[in-house]
């Protein structure tokens, strides 16, 4: 990407930075609808993603209703069940998690944490949100087209995704692919902004090795997303051609409902390669921002510097790079050349090493810390527990032999929900509890927050941990009902009831969270500029919430890394990044560090 051409690491902008021209609209619409302020765009992203995420949550509850109490309701038929499964997966992975981490937290935190006035291309940034918004509208329209929404699984595997016999193959799949194409176009606009802002708009003194890990995580995830989303884009385009123009990129010679189809010679496995070339990095696109954010939460609330900062940065980068060469571990039993299994098992398990290092460093950050069990901290700890669980079950599925009996069972469902649903969502909650005071100037209610945490953390464990054991027994996933399958014991149904009930309770707890968000906005305790006594730049703004332009008259100067907590001898247990060594106040006599 041309970073070679100059040394961005050591680059420090001149003392008199050329001020950005910011668009300051006066009208309500200009300020809050067609806004070019990254913070407003962030909130737009967040609200839209949460809204569509709630739709996906309701879909999952409908699924749990069917699985827990089959034959009790006539709400859902087998086709609808598959539609709910598919839309739930697609919405959660792409339209909620990707959008909220990169579009939401990325937009809010990158300019603030880097010490910039705004994103470098604010207009493009605005367009990015509206493309995303349009893609969500198209997605929702998919529910109402004839034949209903796409029902081919979020993996969209052809030939079934576009052939008769699959729900939504009439129109739903076309709408889905269009929506994805628009999403990707919009994301690319936003992604360019995030990357270039981190590279070019850091304030004076903010060297690469002084970036908070949050920014590293979001930055690396964005780079990966920019490179990986084209794979999905190409695959979607080719599938649209197969569906609408009669080409045979992916469609083999086959029967459709007993009739010979017009297609021939295409390769369904080619689609899988393209899809997972996007799909696996996508896992880390969601995970890396979570890794970054949780590192900052831990450091701040344990009043201790993150352990092994450089190792953490390198781990993020290595995970990002490696995630592009592991995609075929989703295809061990796909009928691809079986010898690929050796290669991809090795690369996949290598990724476990940097990931494990991150976990060690989080835990070592707590060790000998001064831990405040605030709500964000609880969520961060919950994340570590959940992520360790989900990461370790990944060692089963990544190891090619072990994957054979477990693939396409509830073991997989349990694993990926732990590692890329619950874990990142716990981080999202933690991050909202952490940054809400900056966004609104008010604290979220602590008691409600703790109740929310305990129900969510324990409830999700009850939901997903037992699923691994169902998977061991061989219970296949994406089944509408299990009937009297001989190898599935009757008690599995009891377990399904328990899981469903837990799911309803967890879903209810999210209502508490929404209530907390709204109530605290009006009635919450006044937060002040830096309630957590944190070091990073967003807490040092002149106004809370920060105004358009983020900082006051001049941009902050950065003198230190973001983890100066409990520096020996300092009079406070934190030193903000913009406090120079000369300004630092020391205990008793003025000694040097």
């Amino acid at each position: 990407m041309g970073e070679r051409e100059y040394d961005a690491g050591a680059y420090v902008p001149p003392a008199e930075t050329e001020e950005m021209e910011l668009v300051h609209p006066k009208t309500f619409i200009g300020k809050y609808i067609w806004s070019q302020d990254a913070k407003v765009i962030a909130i737009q992203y967040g609200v839209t993603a949460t809204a569509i995420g709630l739709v996906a949550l309701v879909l999952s509850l409908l699924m749990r209703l069917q699985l827990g109490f089959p034959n009790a309701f006539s709400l859902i038929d087998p086709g609808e069940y598959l539609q709910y499964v598919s839309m739930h997966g697609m919405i959660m992975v792409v339209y909620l998690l990707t959008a909220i981490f990169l579009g939401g937290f990325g937009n809010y935190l990158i300019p603030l944490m880097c010490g910039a006035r705004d994103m470098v291309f604010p207009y493009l940034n605005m367009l990015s949100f509206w493309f995303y918004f349009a893609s969500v509208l198209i997605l929702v329209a998919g529910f109402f087209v004839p034949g209903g929404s796409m029902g081919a699984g979020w993996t969209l595997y052809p030939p079934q995704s576009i052939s008769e016999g699959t729900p939504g193959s009439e129109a739903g799949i076309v709408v889905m692919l269009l929506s994805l194409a628009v999403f990707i176009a919009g994301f690319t606009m936003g992604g360019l902004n995030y990357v270039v802002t981190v590279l070019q708009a850091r304030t004076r003194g903010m060297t690469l090795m002084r970036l908070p890990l949050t920014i590293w995580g979001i930055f690396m995830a964005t780079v990966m997303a920019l490179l990986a989303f084209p794979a999905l884009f190409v695959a979607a385009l080719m599938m649209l051609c197969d569906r609408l123009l009669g080409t045979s990129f992916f469609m083999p010679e086959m029967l459709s409902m007993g009739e010979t189809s017009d297609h021939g010679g295409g390769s369904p496995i080619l689609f899988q390669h393209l899809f997972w070339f996007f799909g696996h990095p996508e896992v880390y696109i969601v995970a890396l921002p979570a890794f970054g954010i949780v590192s900052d939460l831990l450091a701040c609330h344990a009043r201790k510097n993150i352990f092994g900062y450089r190792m953490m940065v390198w781990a993020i980068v290595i995970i990002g790079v490696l995630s592009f060469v592991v995609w075929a571990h989703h295809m061990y039993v796909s009928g691809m050349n079986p010898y690929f299994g050796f290669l991809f098992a090795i690369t996949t398990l290598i990724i476990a090493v940097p990931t494990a290092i991150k976990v060690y460093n989080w835990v070592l950050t707590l060790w000998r810390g001064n831990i405040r069990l605030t709500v964000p901290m609880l969520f961060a700890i919950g994340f570590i527990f959940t992520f360790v669980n989900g990461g370790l079950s990944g060692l089963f599925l990544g190891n090619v032999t072990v994957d054979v009996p477990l693939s396409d069972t509830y073991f997989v469902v349990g694993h990926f929900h732990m590692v890329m649903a619950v874990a990142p969502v716990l981080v999202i909650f933690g991050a909202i509890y952490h940054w809400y005071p900056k966004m609104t100037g008010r604290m979220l209610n602590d008691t409600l927050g703790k109740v929310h945490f305990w129900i969510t953390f324990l409830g999700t464990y009850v939901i997903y941990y037992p699923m691994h054991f169902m998977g061991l027994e061989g219970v296949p996933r994406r089944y509408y009902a299990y009937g009297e399958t001989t190898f599935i014991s009757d008690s599995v149904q009891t377990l399904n009831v328990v899981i469903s009930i837990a799911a309803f309770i967890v879903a209810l707890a999210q209502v508490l969270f929404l209530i907390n968000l709204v109530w605290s906005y009006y009635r919450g305790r006044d937060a002040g500029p830096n309630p957590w006594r944190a070091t990073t730049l967003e807490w040092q703004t002149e106004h809370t919430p920060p105004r358009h332009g983020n900082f006051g008259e001049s941009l902050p100067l950065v003198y230190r890394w973001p983890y100066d907590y409990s520096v020996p001898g300092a009079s406070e247990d934190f030193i903000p990044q913009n406090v120079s060594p000369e300004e630092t106040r020391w205990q008793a006599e003025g000694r040097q560090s």
Partner: protein
Amino acid sequence: MTVSLVFLTALMVTFAGWLLWSSFNVRPWEAQSATDDPAQPLPSMMSAGRVGLIVFLAVVTSLFALTISAYMMRMEVSGDWQPLPIPGLLWFNTLALMLASVALQWARHGTTRADGSMVARGLWAGGIGSMVFIVGQLVVWYQLSVNGHHVDSNPADAFFYLLTALHGVHLLGGLVVWGRLLARVRRGAAPVSVHSHLELCTLYWHYLAVVWIVLFALLLLDA
């Protein structure tokens, strides 16, 4: 996927090298006074716009690399691949696009020499060359379909349409920017003021010309 992997490897090695350079021997936990920092001016060649465009081109390269990967994998797996005859017109189109690219380079040169008419003429030539290219590509599509090479007749045909369409759409996007730039020049913008925009435009055109040459070479290799 070899093509994509090679591209990614190159990119990631660059990236890792850059990171190594920035983190090697750095002790991030040490605070420093501002006065210790060498305050160097922002190199003009690395304006935000330019970095943005380069990142965007990396994304587009990923897109084309993946499509080419798909092209090669699809060619391998099936017995139904029938290479399509390369219409002679494509040579002419290639020439038109190259000329357009050269013309924009010329216009860019005009901005450094502050020569307004040179800029305008270069811009016009570049745009017209590109439009000729696009019309030429459409004529090629027409010729092919008349000769029975429809998008659904063979995977080789389908890929030809797909690749040329992807490339053409990117060029059309470029032409939108070109149109806005031309409007500014015609409204009498000083050559210096359009320099940075024209520079980005030129870079984009060179890039698309290279992509086209790669695609064309692929098609020739197949035929």
